[in-house]
């Protein structure tokens, strides 16, 4: 109900558009929009993982539903994926997009399997051509997800007696990436882009310890500490798309983020180096209805905190169909930056999805499904993620 109230104003406005167009398709889009925007308060956070608890968090993916449905391979070529700004030059008109996703995660550690579920809204973006060759964009995506909740049972020696207790440590929030980007189709063979990334966000952190009663008495009072940590940071990125003939396109992108500063009140609690990202991709379109793509990226997380790793990620996928309902599928693999042990946790996954264009392509509804498996340090995570995205080009 709260979500309906919150989105009520927007829904009424769009309903007016429904009445004007009178299309059932638009009605479907409205329904999808309401579902996408009906969200818990921690919207614009990304998927999380046990691997993000110890470290800076779980890095977000700079991918729209379309790109993610092909394993991420299309992200460098997708104007609404906040990965490579050069692709903005091909948008050609005002475009807005949003996505949401729910992950069902089974975390198997030792002989214990825990089922977890999270809903996130990791992307919101707008792009508008301002000159003939220049498109500006503002997008909001998840940079680091720091939402987790851990319960620990243990005991400690207090006043000569072993005293059992239960700890509940939780973090809710993350670091978001506000990207202000510009992309330009410089020539028919070259597109360039650049962006400034403002990193901001906060987490609500809670640490609670409850001691077991001694007999009927709670001799030791519970510990309950809460605080809010605010994060700031800055980054720059640049990218290029180069066309070699009508069916072959190459992408190159780079990003450098300086430092993530964690503030507790006005006190600087921590300052962490952020990674440099380098990557590239290739897209082959043998026919107008077939697009094959692959990409690779490297992120230098190892300098961030002790025990973190540099990561190399790859993806490959295809988008089939030139009409309003393409079919997408892809695979991805790579490493995760934070985990126990001496080697980086690994991640492999497959994805599939489709889209549906309405009103002569003015609105596109994308859905996708992703299956991931992450392994490392004895933890085996298997994740199903359902994705919904809405792109509007009025």
């Amino acid at each position, binding site marked *: 109900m709260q979500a309906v109230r919150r989105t009520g104003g927007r829904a009424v406005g769009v309903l007016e558009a429904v009445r004007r167009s009178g299309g059932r398709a638009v009605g479907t889009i409205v*329904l999808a929009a309401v579902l996408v925007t009906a969200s818990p308060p921690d919207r614009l956070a990304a998927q999380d993982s046990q691997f993000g*608890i110890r470290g800076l968090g779980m890095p977000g993916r700079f991918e729209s539903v379309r790109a993610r449905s092909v394993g991420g391979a299309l992200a460098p070529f997708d104007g609404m994926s906040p990965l490579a700004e050069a692709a903005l030059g091909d948008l050609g008109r005002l475009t807005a997009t949003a996505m*949401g996703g729910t992950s069902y995660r089974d975390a198997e550690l030792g002989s214990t399997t825990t*089922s977890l579920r999270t809903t996130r809204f990791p992307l919101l973006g707008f792009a508008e051509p301002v000159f003939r060759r220049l498109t500006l964009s503002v997008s909001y995506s998840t940079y680091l997800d720091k939402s987790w*909740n851990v319960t620990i049972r243990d005991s400690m020696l207090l006043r000569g007696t072993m005293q059992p207790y239960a700890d509940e440590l939780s973090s809710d929030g993350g670091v978001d990436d506000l990207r202000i980007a510009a992309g330009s189709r410089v020539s028919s063979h070259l597109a360039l882009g650049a962006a400034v990334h403002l990193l901001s966000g906060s987490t609500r*952190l809670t640490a609670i310890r409850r001691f077991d009663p001694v007999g009927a008495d709670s001799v030791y009072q519970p510990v309950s500490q809460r605080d809010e940590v605010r994060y700031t940071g800055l980054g720059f990125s640049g990218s290029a798309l180069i066309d070699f003939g009508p069916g072959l396109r190459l992408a190159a992108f780079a990003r450098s983020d300086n430092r993530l500063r*964690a503030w507790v009140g006005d006190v600087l609690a921590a300052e962490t180096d952020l990674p440099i990202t380098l990557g590239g991709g290739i897209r082959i379109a043998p026919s107008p209805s077939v697009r094959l793509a692959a990409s690779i990226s490297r992120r230098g997380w190892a300098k961030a905190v002790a025990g973190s790793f540099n990561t190399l990620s790859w993806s490959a996928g295809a988008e089939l169909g030139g009409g309003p309902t393409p079919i997408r599928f892809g695979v991805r693999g790579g490493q995760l930056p934070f985990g126990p042990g001496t080697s980086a946790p690994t991640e492999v996954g497959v994805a599939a999805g489709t889209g549906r264009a309405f009103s002569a392509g003015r609105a596109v509804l994308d859905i996708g499904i992703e299956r991931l498996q992450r392994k490392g*340090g004895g933890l085996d995570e298997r994740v199903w993620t359902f994705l919904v995205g809405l792109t509007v080009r009025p």
Partner: protein
Amino acid sequence: MRALRAAWLAATLGAGGAAGCVERVSAPGQCPEFCPSGSIQIVDTVLATNIERDSAFRGYAFAHRAAAMYLADVPGAVDSRGILATAALTDPVTLPGDTNPDPILGSDSLKLAFTITRRDTAAHNLLLTFYRLPFGLDSTTTFADLAGPFGGAPLRTVNLDSLLAKVARDTSGNLIGVDSATGDAVTVDTTNRRLRVTVKFDSAQAPYVAADSGRLGFGIRVGADVPTSLGIATRASGILSAGVTWYVRVDSTTAADTTLVHEVFPGGITLDSYVFDPPPAPLDSTLAVGGVPSARSLLRVTLPRAIRDSAQIVRATLVVIPAVAWQGAPTDSFVVEAHTVLADFGAKSPIAVDVTRTDTALIRMGAKDTVRIEVTNLVQFWVSDTLAPTALMLRPRNEAGSPAEVRFYPSAAAASRPSLRLTYARRFPFGRP
């Protein structure tokens, strides 16, 4: 086309519904591999020298303001006796239907009623012995002042156990025992575990002396097969206290049958207190708690800034060592209370009496073991209000309710000084990866 749209609608609703589900993010942690790098740090420490400038003060509550008269017969430890003074009767009196005042000629009898709030149920042959005392009793009367009257023959002796043996349920359902031979009675309040005792005195035992306006003084001693003690409710207790009922003869000229009319006059009590031996020892350098008049001890704590500003108190225990154990009947209990001081004005420091800022500990009779008072609430209050004085006052529960007094070693006694054992949590390192 229509089927395709329907399939799309279903897929959209399914995906949207899945995205709208509630979250479940809590997972058991396996530490340290999959736990946050920071953890809750608990520190247990003894502040051995942080209690200082401690003092004891006497004179907060007196026997005649106590909630109960303390009667005890514990040879070698304490001999405590109750004293009562009755109010004057109005003489002459104006009887109903008469306009002329009529003089009281004398008494038929007097019934003294009182409420026993506490007794030793394990002590057999519990005897209450009543003495006639001078009516000029007051709050300054001492045990030695009444040695003579108490040394005389008693007015009455009532065996409480014998009276209780006669208890039966009456037509109203009350548990009442009556000794028809003596006129004594007892009513048992099983809810509050109290006894309402009525003792009858005849005209020789409780004479009406016109010159004294009917004022009488009574003394009560307790005895049993074993050392024992009991408590009798006073006017300060807020429950039914002692009272007398006079049965007197009045010279009436209006009565049709005789010139003597038997009238009932309830009488009041002007003093209900107790005297005891030995008298309280004067204060010395130790930290005295209890006694009559009651003594309190003020302990000032220097709480380290690091703890006061950023720690969360998990447990705090005040550790004090008795220098002089308290003495009393085996069944007596001594509860010492630690109160937060609202403002440090020394002896006149106002204390918080609400339960959130008061902690207690029971001390066994004669024990000189270390006394540990859990004062977690108090220290938590100090941490939450950094302007509050970090001082606490020790006082007995039911101040002046008994002469029992315990004395603790002060901070000047280096080897046995009071200390504060603190268990606290350090500030969690929020924000650090």
